[in-house]
């Protein structure tokens, strides 16, 4: 399997006032194409910093990071912006959709910052991404007319639209109720089955049971990295959750 992410001894220090905070203290691992990795850790474990580093939003203080074979550490802001645009799809906890904007327009957004797409190509890709997340019938709904689960699926479609090397999800189910969480998890498993590489950062240990690999972070170090031999089927779990009557 092709190597998508390679971290080598990543350290990230923050200077807060007089003190230096070591958020990451030498993190190393590789993630191959097609893996569904959960990164777990309590708050303060450094998982947000790791996510920012993986997402090319931040650069490590020391260590090397290769994304899809490209060294990120020495890149300036603008080149990292372009790299994010081409290689990464973000899914955030709070969806971060544009208000009063249709699903299609929201999904098109990453392609707006890529001048190699024409407006008809953009539209076409956005529609197929929305169909892939099961929102083919809600293309023209505005973000304020959708439920949380639908909004998160639009956000996932937005993360898919640029065919990224890796999808980075940051507590993507954190704002959703159990049932909707599993619906989203089903979607992630489906994408995984289609061969997408997914990194899912969470503090919820349950989610790790549905991924193929689980990296645990504590105090800025990797304390566990296990392959999941028994991946649970989110669809089956979803079916077992009773539908609540209103």
């Amino acid at each position, binding site marked *: 399997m092709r190597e998508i992410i390679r971290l080598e001894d990543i350290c990230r220090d923050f200077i807060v006032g007089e003190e230096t905070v070591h958020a990451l203290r030498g993190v190393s691992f590789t993630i191959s194409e097609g893996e569904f990795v959960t990164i777990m850790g309590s708050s303060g474990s450094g998982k947000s910093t790791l996510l*920012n580093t993986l*997402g090319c*939003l*931040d650069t490590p203080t020391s260590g090397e990071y290769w994304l899809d074979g490209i060294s990120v550490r020495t890149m300036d*802001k*603008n080149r990292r*912006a*372009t790299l*994010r*645009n*081409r290689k990464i799809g*973000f899914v*955030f906890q*709070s969806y*971060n959709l*544009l*208000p*009063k*904007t249709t699903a299609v*327009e929201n999904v098109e*957004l*990453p392609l*707006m*910052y*890529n*001048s190699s797409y024409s407006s008809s190509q953009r539209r076409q890709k956005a529609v197929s991404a929305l169909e892939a997340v099961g929102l083919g019938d809600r293309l023209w709904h505005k973000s304020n007319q959708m439920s949380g689960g639908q909004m998160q699926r639009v956000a996932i479609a*937005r993360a898919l639209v640029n065919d990224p090397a890796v999808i980075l999800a940051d507590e993507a189910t954190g704002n959703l109720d159990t049932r909707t969480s599993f619906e989203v998890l089903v979607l992630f498993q489906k994408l995984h089955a289609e061969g997408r590489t997914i990194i899912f950062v969470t503090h919820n240990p349950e989610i790790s049971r549905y991924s193929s690999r689980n990296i645990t972070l504590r105090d800025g170090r990797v304390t566990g990295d296990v392959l999941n031999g028994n991946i649970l089927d989110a669809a089956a779990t979803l079916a077992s959750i009773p539908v609540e009557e209103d």
Partner: protein
Amino acid sequence: MNIGNLFKIAVKALSNNKFRGFLTMLGIIIGVAAVITMLAIGQGSKRSIQAQISEMGSNMIMIHPGGERRGGVRLSPEDMESLKLGDLQDIQTQTSFVTYVSPAVNSAGQAIYGANNTPTTVYGVNRDYLEIRRYRVQDGEVFTEQDIRTAAKVCLVGKSVVDELFPEGQNPIGKVIRFGTIPLRIIGVLESKGYNSMGMDQDDLIIAPYTTVQKRMLAITHLQEIICSAVTEDYTEQAIEEISRILRDNHRLKDTDEDDFSIRSQQELSSMMTSTTDTMTVLLAVVAGISLLVGGIGIMNIMYVSVTERTREIGLRMSIGAKGRDILAQFLIESVLISVTGGLIGVVLGVGAALLVNLLASYPVFIQPWSVILSFAVCTVTGVFFGWYPAKKAAGLDPIEAIRYE
């Protein structure tokens, strides 16, 4: 990212907040409209004054005898006899910037015809006078060179004099009126010019050959005044210089001597009058400009609020690949769109308001193309200027913090 996409994004963002955008625009609309209307009104009054002055002969130059010291006593200009016929002839022949030259000797008195009489003034002049003062003959004709040589007892009369002396509407041509004791035959009636900008009735006059006034009425040989016209108003300065040189020569003045004549031009009058309205125009424009500035500050304020309010959006855009300059451009385009749209509406409103003032208050207005272009340019610059700082702030946000901004 191409500019077309940025444009779409900006339009979209603005249309999400139509009412707020409109309120922001309102500042610019009022500012631009005010600038245009105020300048139109200012320019309108300036133009109307200029037109009135030019009707009097804007290129007119008046030469009077100047006060002179004689044995320590400064004499009144009227008592001076320094302007001679020779001066007139030299100005006629030796200048290149002067078109028409006329002597002027005036005599005030009572004009009488039958039982009617009216106080008026006889202007003793030559034929050029009519050209200089832009008088046109409505009926009859102008006296001839022969009349001047012979000091003929003929005259042209203004409308006001005709009205006073011939109240029954008889044809005045050929009638003999008396001015003081001198009988004058009316050979022409002048076209009415009405009142000038200083409220003087320009039709209350009698024009006669200057020789007639000189010899038969005043018994003098000198000239009270010489009136000339420059080739055009713009050559007034040069014409004055030429005339001044000739007169100093003729009067044998030494370099150290003061002029024994004074030259005034209509240009001075016109510049004096227009400078008043210019001051008004500047004042109006300044007030209007301040409202444009206030409008600009309104844009800046709203853009600031907008940047703060949309911090998460900015964070998202950055995390999906927008560069700092894309964000900068987006917000700049937004503020320029507000100001340009506001500017366009302001231009339409300003022009409309100016025309309305003209229509309803029949106040003279003149919309100068440059005032429209200027105010429009200023409001575009305002958009960039006041949009720059908020846009810069947006572009400088850290995506990590922005995306989680609450």
